[in-house]
């Protein structure tokens, strides 16, 4: 029986059919998304430099036409592949242990690692709301095209908008906390010697990204920015 199973082995099983290959695709698309999340955070922080600066930045992005759409396309493809392959892996994982343990200790308790499948969909749901709120203006919240500063300030003055945003960016931080190091590991860039360093970098990027994004609703709610907006 075992011989029959061995003859089935075929090293030409497509890359995307093997867990390691699927994970590699998730890792590369994850890298694209981490790059975007960090860049977007740095862009957003220009709100602290005043209305003219952030609105000029928005105008610059919107005037880049095809480039903007190319970037959006890359991000959409990355998000799509990231979701499709993680869902496939998650379904396969559920099949891999049909009988569950009555008692199971999670050692070490890798909270961020085991909640990736929860933080992911929540972030995705938030991104849809976020685009409707601040890109297309269809979320039923105050919106003026290209007046990012006022849109953000007016939006974040609504407590539940701020709360949703703060929860979502915290989840992004948790996702990156595990995701960045995990991605490097999946792509084979890990070694016992520099694993602690890579993990620390991953945690730091996750934490700093979340703090960067959190600073904006906090600044609006405390009146630090947006004083002239009514």
């Amino acid at each position, binding site marked *: 029986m075992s011989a029959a199973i*061995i003859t089935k*082995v075929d*090293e030409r099983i497509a890359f995307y059919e093997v867990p390691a290959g699927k994970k590699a695709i998730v890792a590369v698309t994850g890298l694209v998304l981490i790059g975007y999340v960090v860049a977007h955070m740095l862009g957003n922080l220009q709100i602290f430099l005043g209305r003219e600066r952030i609105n000029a930045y928005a105008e610059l992005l919107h005037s880049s036409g095809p480039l903007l759409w190319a970037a959006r396309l890359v991000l959409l493809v990355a998000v799509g592949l990231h979701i499709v392959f993680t869902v496939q892996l998650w379904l396969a994982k559920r*099949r891999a*242990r049909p009988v569950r*343990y009555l008692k199971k200790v999670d050692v070490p308790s890798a909270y961020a690692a085991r909640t990736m499948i929860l933080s992911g969909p929540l972030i995705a749901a938030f991104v849809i709301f976020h685009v409707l709120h601040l890109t297309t203006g269809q979320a039923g919240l105050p919106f003026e095209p290209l007046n990012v500063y006022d849109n953000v300030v007016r939006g974040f003055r609504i407590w539940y908008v701020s709360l949703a945003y703060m929860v979502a960016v915290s989840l992004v931080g948790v996702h990156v906390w595990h995701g960045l190091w995990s991605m490097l590991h999946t792509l084979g860039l890990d070694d016992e010697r520099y694993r602690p360093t890579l993990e620390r970098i991953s945690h730091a990027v996750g934490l700093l990204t979340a703090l960067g994004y959190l600073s904006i609703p906090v600044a609006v709610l405390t009146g630090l920015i947006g004083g002239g907006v009514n």
Partner: protein
Amino acid sequence: MRIILHVWRQKNASEPGRMVRYEVNNVNPHMSFLEMLDVLNEELVQQGEDPIAFDHDCREGICGMCGFMINGRAHGPEPGTTVCQLHMRHFRDGDELWLEPFRARAFPLIRDLVVNRSAFDRLIAAGGYISVNAGSAPDANAIPVPKQAAEKAMDAAACIGCGACVAQCPNASAALFLGAKISHLGLLPQGQPERYQRVLKMVSQAALEGFGHCTNAGECEAVCPKRIKLEVIARMNRDYLVAAVKHLGVKEAVEAGVG
């Protein structure tokens, strides 16, 4: 010592199983965990009951035969220890312990705490070897091996194939076992000619066997009785990616009539 056990009893794969409570009195703290089960089994036999089935062989922590879950941890609470080398002195009088078999689709249950780990044999048969005529043992240092490679290969070769990594993994992934074999052979000069074929074959076989994927949670590393490091998985991933790219190149060359 007195120990209370809740043991998974299941006659065979087709009948349903359940937890059964046993009390073991007069446990000597110097007994190994398996010796404690031997004592319980003798009592069960005397009472005309079926003894608890569990795998074991060398009982010195080097064969990889034994292993089950104790309170939700493969091989129990002591790090770097197989269940046969786990001694009762690590428990307290009156402790209540839950024993369950390793759970994974790729490890079908045979009876009680015994599971079929032939899937590991098939992974090895798929590529975990070196195809050369062995002959007599070569002279020491006839093939120079860098110190670093020798150390890492030796650490990976410590894997005894017990399956604790699969049992503990939240995804029932065999990544640590595969990584250990691929690192062990792939780090040494003798393993180079088949290095990339090996990783393609073994990783493909693991997918066919129904093992899950690696989410880098690190639970396998924490329970491995031989302390295999997570880095072997990164090495396997690296070799797999290189192999996949090389393989694409080879396939295209053959199709174009070059190869």
